[in-house]
């Protein structure tokens, strides 16, 4: 067993260094983020957006909920951007920061944090390619995700990213955007144009037209089957080979490559030819370029309101858990004559500011609906629904499995689990994330649908090892640090509440847990963390 000795030495070293890092409680306090430069402030756009909602509430005769306290809003931002609750260290630093525009400054800094890149890229990758495994070897979700994270952290233009995705060429490894195409490869090695057309329309135009594969859109007379077929035809020249994604306008017999549609069950080549076509504004199409690059230019054309509305609705959905217009990808055709709605207002600022997703994220987080409380003493269900429909109260939305385990992991520690954390802790986080999601159940592709929890999830949170690991009072744990570092029992309870729920305990809660702490303190702290982890408040965005 000599090999075991050689392996165990570095592992022991890692462990020791992790202990030293964690136990050494002296750490440079988090600095306050710098002011947002004047030319990047969004005050006017935020005011317009707020005015839109205020008018909407007034017309509906609704009184908006009270403003949520800033810690609650901070929790929402952290869950939306990092996929976990804020760390105790962050909460303390946020509270100590008394400079103006605190929230916006913190958001701007969070948008440059690795945690944002990783978590948000995963969300976007799901929207782009679903949750299926995809074809072996030629679909690399990890590469797509890394690329998206790089783009997000570089604050890249969504228009440019979209063009890269639709018109990607090359290998799925060194041109990661190409994975948007390769996931659609069929078993017979052809590309599934229908799938690509469906994804393009849903993701970039906010339109479900998959049904038009077989028939006209049932509710929207604008969308006919021929539109769908015409859209699919733009992808007909793309092929996936060992050389990666390439476009060929001639086949091996030097015949032009055309898109054919056959009756179900029949060979595609025996079908009728369909030319590439767009459902509206053909004048936006450039005259030259590959079919896919022409489609990409059309989709992202500055006058294509669908493009900005689609991404604004999706980012709202990813931030809040519920899109502004539900479902996220079936938006009505924007009428030129209609007054601008929230999606238009968001979209206009997004376009003005270089089509950056960071602009949408900040605008949403600074808007009044996002900052409203989820508390509503309302006893009338119908009135509550009306309030929810008009965003006059912040909705209760179940956290995604990634957010639950992310929060469970973070709340069990005092400091941020981020790129600066010890490799062992990051490794532990990654493995527990995967294992937890497998047991908890993935939300699937349909992730913006409101759903309640399941009994499997309750049992996992109550009795599972992930909860047990996070609440244990031992050397490396947050609960142990809380016990050691808090000067008195009241602070122990306060810190535990802040770590798990990003709020302070109520008087009743404080009193109850103070009583509990009189006995076996280690057990009482573990039981406190258990109660907090299992509370609905922990697993729901509010």
């Amino acid at each position, binding site marked *: 067993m000599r090999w075991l000795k050689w392996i165990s030495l570095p592992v022991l070293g890692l462990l020791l260094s992790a202990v030293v890092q964690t136990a050494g409680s002296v750490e440079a306090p988090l600095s306050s983020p710098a002011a947002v430069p004047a030319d990047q402030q969004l005050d006017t756009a935020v005011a317009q957006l707020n005015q839109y909602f205020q008018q909407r509430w007034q017309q509906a005769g609704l009184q908006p909920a009270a403003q949520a306290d800033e810690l609650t809003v901070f929790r929402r931002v952290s869950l939306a951007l990092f996929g976990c609750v804020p760390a105790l260290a962050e909460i303390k630093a946020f509270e100590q920061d008394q400079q103006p525009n605190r929230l916006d400054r913190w958001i701007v800094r969070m948008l440059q944090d690795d945690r944002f890149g990783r978590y948000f890229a995963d969300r976007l990758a799901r929207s782009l390619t679903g949750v299926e495994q995809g074809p072996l070897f030629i679909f690399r979700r990890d590469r797509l995700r890394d690329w998206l994270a790089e783009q997000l952290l570089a604050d890249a233009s969504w228009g440019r990213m979209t063009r890269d995705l639709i018109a990607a060429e090359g290998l799925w490894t060194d041109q990661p955007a190409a994975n948007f195409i390769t996931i659609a490869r069929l078993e017979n090695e052809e590309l599934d144009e229908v799938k690509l057309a469906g994804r393009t329309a849903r993701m970039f135009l906010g339109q479900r037209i998959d049904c038009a594969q077989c028939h006209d859109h049932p509710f929207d007379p604008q969308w006919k089957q021929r539109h769908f077929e015409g859209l699919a035809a733009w992808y007909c020249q793309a092929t996936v080979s060992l050389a990666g994604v390439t476009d060929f306008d001639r086949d091996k017999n030097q015949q032009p490559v055309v898109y054919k549609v056959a009756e179900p069950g029949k060979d595609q080549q025996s079908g009728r030819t369909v030319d590439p076509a767009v459902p509206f504004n053909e004048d936006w199409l450039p005259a030259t370029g590959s079919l896919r690059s022409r489609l990409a230019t059309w989709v992202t054309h500055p006058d294509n309101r669908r493009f900005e509305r689609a991404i604004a609705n999706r980012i709202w959905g990813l931030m809040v858990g519920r899109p502004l217009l539900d479902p996220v990808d079936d938006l009505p055709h924007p009428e030129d004559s209609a007054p601008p709605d929230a999606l238009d207002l968001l979209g206009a600022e997004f376009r003005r500011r270089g089509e950056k997703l960071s602009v949408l994220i900040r605008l949403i987080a600074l808007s009044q609906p996002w900052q409203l409380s989820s508390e509503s003493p309302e006893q009338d269900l119908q009135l509550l629904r009306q309030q929810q429909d008009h965003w006059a109260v912040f909705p209760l939305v179940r956290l995604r499995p990634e957010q639950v385990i992310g929060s469970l992991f973070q709340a069990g520690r005092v400091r941020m689990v981020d790129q600066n954390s010890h490799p062992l802790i990051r490794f532990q986080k990654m493995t527990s994330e995967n294992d937890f999601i497998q047991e908890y159940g993935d939300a699937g*592709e349909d992730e913006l649908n409101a759903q309640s*929890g399941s009994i499997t999830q309750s049992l996992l949170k109550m009795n599972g090892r992930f909860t047990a690991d996070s609440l244990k009072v031992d050397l490396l744990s947050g609960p142990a640090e809380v016990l050691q570092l808090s000067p008195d029992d009241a602070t122990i309870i306060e810190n535990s509440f802040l770590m798990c729920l990003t709020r302070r305990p109520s008087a009743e809660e404080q009193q109850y847990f103070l009583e509990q702490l009189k006995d076996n303190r280690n057990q009482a702290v573990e039981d406190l963390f258990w109660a907090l982890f299992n509370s609905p408040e922990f697993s729901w965005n509010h």
Partner: protein
Amino acid sequence: MEPLITDRRGLMRQAAAAGLSFLLPCLAPAAARRRGTDRPASLIVLWMNGGMSQLETWDPHPGTLSGGLTKAIRTSAQGVQISHLLPRMAEQMHQCLLIRSLHSKEGDHEKGAAFVRTGYNPEPTLAYPTLGSVIARQLPQASLQIPPYILLNPRIPVPESGYLGNEWNAFRVFRPGENVANLTASVPDQRLQRRLQGLDVVGREFARRRPLAEQVTLQQDLTRRAVQMMQSEQLAAFQLDDEPAALQDSYGRNDFGRGCLVARKLVETGVRVVEVTLPGFDTHISNHEGHITQCQILDPAMSALLQDLQQRDLLQSVIVLCISEFGRTPRINPADGRDHWPSWFSCVVAGGGFRRGAVLGATAGEIPTGDSPAPLDPVSVPEVYATILSQLGIDGSQEVITPVGRPIRFASAAPDLRLLHSGS
């Protein structure tokens, strides 16, 4: 040291005494002791994961190009022959309806499984519920303290409940016959009680501030049901310790065999739907050898299950369905494997008023060229499902409004009378 759970009902009593809102017991008297048709109906699905070859199992074509090495043997059903790899099932075929003409368009594992599990072609914009979710939702069972829909040894990660919502997702058990994960509290009873009390304090504060909205979390209900399940005597249905060794041997001492025996115990307890997975059918290489191995697991387990249900007079109320996401190609590839073949494949249904000792549909032994011809007497998956639903007393034509506002029927076809015993 604090005592471990000594009285299974102790916690419920303590909880009731403490007046905890989410712990109020809602126990109905234990049911499911009844037999024959006078008991709640259930479904057991034996899911052959990866695509079972019809040619090595239910639809052999010996002596033809497509038939390969598989021979056909006579069975207890007159005129019905199945593969020689299933000798024990051959003795049970008088109880079964064999359908050889199922067909699908989906030759991809994920899409094929989505179609066969839901009876609807998969759509990117709407997730359909599996047959199991629909049954669990439509046939509530008040006396049941464990979930109504259980997957044993599952392999498919996709949620089952689709547009019906998480509540109707299946409960997953990865190692059937062993202790079910997360059902035992990591602390003694008394301490769990204290934890639940703390949870109640924190939960009350949250609910007080948003009395109506909080109800959507179902938190109180879920915690109550979780605690109830942790304490329930019905959990014994997951355990095999008390089952006679000979019976366990007859099912087979492997995950699938144990799963089938647990499935029998679960439906006996009143569980509505149990799905047991046998993985390993994706035999692109060495198909025949692969199916020898698979059939050595399937044959004893499925035949023991049918016999066991019959002996316990449960076969009238329990439907057993053995099915796969698709079949495998008539052509044997250069690696001696068979590839995916949705054009025709087989399933077996037994019990619950389905025809017995009969075959529906037929396929040819030659290897098709060009467009694949339809099998003789085709039966669709939606037809099978509509028939199962109707036998369980559920109207498949009933529409529900999905979250996107589209009305959808539980089954996209009507029940098929060809599948039913003439007397039922």
